[in-house]
């Protein structure tokens, strides 16, 4: 949870050219942001998946989300492309304690299935984003260290290292470069337990909509497998007025 006083403190520090905020504060600001529109927004998104042989496939979805207990959120994603995926939908309810709840609806099965188990390391609908990348729980529950300030793509950034503390995390370390001015993370480097780079997420385009920053175009590259996924967000509408009933299994099963 973010206290308004924290913003005031950070703004005051920035304005005064004061020393950098603590890593915990930076991580909290990153978590407060919703760069992929999955925490209090409606977005239309389009992903292009490229495998190691260069074959590409497309994925399109619309996501609605509700931040119900910041930074926890509920999100419902309906897929529209490719054609054989149309109608499939996914509901995720983040939980503070215990596993997040996830439900998958496939029209031919008529009924949603609760997906449990150690799914966090799995890819999200075949993309190079894992469920863990999207729920950002590894960042939520991590020990962060500020490594300094660096320029990234011409923008001054905080360079952070976060070590996830959850035992089921697939990552041992996440490096982030977070823009100093708006706390949007521009680059993430994910390391596995063997401290090898497994994936790199790079933000290519950030967009401010109604005062909120979104990463509208980003690429996740899986270095180990040679895949990559480009995620483009279109039609971003930050809103937190969606009814809670939208994020139920019953609603998920509506075609």
């Amino acid at each position, binding site marked *: 949870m973010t206290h308004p006083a924290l913003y005031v403190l950070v703004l005051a520090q920035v304005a005064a050219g004061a020393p950098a905020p603590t890593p915990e504060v930076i991580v909290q600001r990153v978590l407060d942001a919703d760069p992929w529109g999955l925490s209090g927004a409606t977005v239309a998104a389009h992903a292009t998946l490229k495998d190691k042989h260069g074959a590409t496939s497309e994925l399109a979805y619309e996501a609605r989300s509700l931040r119900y207990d910041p930074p926890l959120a509920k999100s419902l994603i309906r897929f529209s492309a490719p054609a054989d*995926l149309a109608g*499939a939908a996914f509901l995720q309810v983040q939980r503070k304690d215990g596993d997040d709840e996830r439900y998958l609806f496939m029209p031919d099965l008529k009924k949603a*299935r609760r997906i449990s*188990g150690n799914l966090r390391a799995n890819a999200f*609908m075949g*993309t190079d984003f894992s469920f863990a990348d999207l729920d950002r729980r590894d960042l939520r529950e991590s020990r962060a260290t500020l490594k300094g300030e660096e320029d990234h793509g011409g923008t001054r950034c905080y360079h952070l290292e976060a070590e996830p503390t959850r*035992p089921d995390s697939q990552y041992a370390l996440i490096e982030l470069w977070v823009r100093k001015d708006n706390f949007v993370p521009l680059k993430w480097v994910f390391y596995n337990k063997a401290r090898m780079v497994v994936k790199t997420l790079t933000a290519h385009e950030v967009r401010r909509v109604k005062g909120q920053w979104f990463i509208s175009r980003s690429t996740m590259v899986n270095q180990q*497998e040679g895949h990559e996924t480009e995620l483009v967000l279109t039609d971003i509408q930050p809103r937190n007025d969606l009814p809670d009933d939208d994020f139920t299994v019953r609603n998920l099963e509506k075609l």
Partner: protein
Amino acid sequence: MRAFVRFQLAHRRAVVAVILVSLAVAGYAARTIQVRFQYKDFYDYPGNPDMPLFARYSHEFGDPAGFVVALIQADDVFRPDVLTFVDAVTRDLEPEPLFAHVRSLTNAKAISGDGDDVQSGLLMATLPTTSAERERVRKIAVGSALLVRRVVAADSTTTAILAEMRTPATLASIDEQKQAIAAVDRALARHPPPPGVRVVTTGGPVAETETTGALAHDILVFTPAALLVIVLALYLTFRSVQGVLLPLAAVGVSVAWTAGIFAQLRHPVDIVGSTLPATLLVYGAVDPIFVLSRFMQKLDQGLEREEAIVVAMRELGLPCFLTSFTTALGFLAFCTATLPTVSRFGITAAIGVTLAWVTTMTVLPVLLSWLPPPRRNLGELRVAKLVDGWLAGLWRAIRGRGRAVLAATAVLIVVGGALAVHQRVSSIYVDNLPPGTALDSIHTLEQKLSGVIRTVVYFEGEPGSMKRPDVLRAIAAVDRFAERKSYVNTSISLADLVAEENRAFNGGDPAATTIPASAALIAQYLAILDPEDRADFVDGTYARSHIRILTADPGSETFRQLRAELEAEIARDFAGLGVTVSLTGTAMVGYAALDRVVVEMVVGFAIGFAIIVLFVLVLFRSLRIALISVVPNLLTVIAAFLFMRALDISLRMDTSLFLSVCVGGLFNTTIHLAARLRIAVAQGQTDRDVAVEETMRTVGPPSLYTAAILSLGFACFMLSGFPGLRAFGMLSLVTLVVAFFSDIIVSTTLLRRFFGWPRPGAAPARTLEAA
């Protein structure tokens, strides 16, 4: 020849200097020779029609069993201490850049269902701490078609950590495979196994590297063993150090020259090439023995040393050339083989035999002129007298039974030939590995898990075709067909994956382990998979997929049958589906190539045989003698094939090698007999019994010694760690012994009857030398 020898002797310092320089050059070149056994050498060669598909498949899906395997055996591999050990080794290996993936029970993913819940993801994100959790993961693991026999045995007594090489093992070099094995060994060394747990490193790469070591060891054993046979033969013949050293020096120089030339081929010594050193030593030693013996005869007759050398060389230059030439021709016939390893063997052996003749004509005379000659010669030996008496007795026994001998020969050729043509061609890989821990661990791998022999059914269609229910059902049908074979340990396909997901999404109901009818549902099942996991089964465009069939090694004969049956099944299941289905994998590509080697060996042998018969025809200008020469040698070959049938030895790459080495050994005695008989006739001998007996008693002893040296020399291969090479040694022994007896009994009988004896008063026949 006389002038040549005199010239050499006059400039012997220069000749020795040239030889020493050439030895230094050959030795320098030969230092680069490596010994290597690599299965891919038998199929990965330009022009192999199976390779483009195999390469395309390997590029797409890697090697289905090219893992370095840490095989872990315990009373229960789900024991907490065993799982902790597996996890520690797995985590240790994961960062190793040599490996594309490291898979084990502790990082495997699985999908299972229970009611409306689907459990997906890591089989164990954290190690189970309670017995209930352990039982749950055990149930999922041994119930998953994708995990059982792959990373865990159905009885939970064996598990495996599969370290998949980044370079597919089928295409990797031995060094790359050694590095991968060393990485696994290092990881295992860092984590001692719990009590009662047995761990071995195994898998395809281990089999290949262990075999390379065994092959090098073999060469180090049977080359000295062949050398020992020659040394013994030389010592028994000449009873002096010089008598041993002089011929050995000659043959040694020829082997060194050949090694230098072989090095220029820039190819390591493989299992076929491993027979070369012993082959060259054994064949190369024969001529120097005859030259040395003749030289000593001439000394005994009172000639001066230099004159004795010149006369001995003049008398034996041509016969030695003829026998060496026929031997070289026999080997050269193998250069027609498409498989480089066979053609290289043929060319190298032909060069080696020719060089052995060259060194007999150059090195030996020079050394004879320098070193003191041996004290005793061949004729003084008691054994020589015994042999002479035995040959005389033998001739007495058979000369009156010519019809019986010929009738028996005819029966043997017809009946034996009819039986011999039905040879079983069955190459084998696993059970041809030398006994030891590597073989034992591969057998365990086969019994408990999957094995190292891989067959692949490769599907190629339009993009999206692998998501179609009809295609997946057809894949499932072929998959099930393969699984019904007793030697198939695992058969895994995209259909298994989809069926397993369908079961999970249908409450875990085993009846739902089927391909759903809805194409959309299949697409959705596939879409939720990790790209990394999915890529093991299907390409990114869903145009290509495969069935990976891992088996024990029943031999190529079974795989030929499997291929035919799979093709029939595929034709039934895939009719009209618009999907191209091919069979590939090392079992299909490798065994096809190995079987081709056998065919090429047989064809090469037949060509060599025919060339030598033609050569005899030209040499003697006699169709009669050419035809006579066919009979005893054909009989020998038939006898060897009958021996194979009797002992149930299949024709395969290594056993068929006996054809290659024996083609050079056949015909020599026949040629000597015919040539000697011509001399007898030219000298006016008209009594055929007397002429043949004299011929037999003149040619018989050296032929017997030659046969003894050759057969005992090749019998050294019976010391090999490779069962196939042991069979090769035995077959060579049998063939060369039978060849000797066949010539002494059948050739003499045929010559006595059909030689073309001159009518009284006719002009004497021309001798070979005159020809």
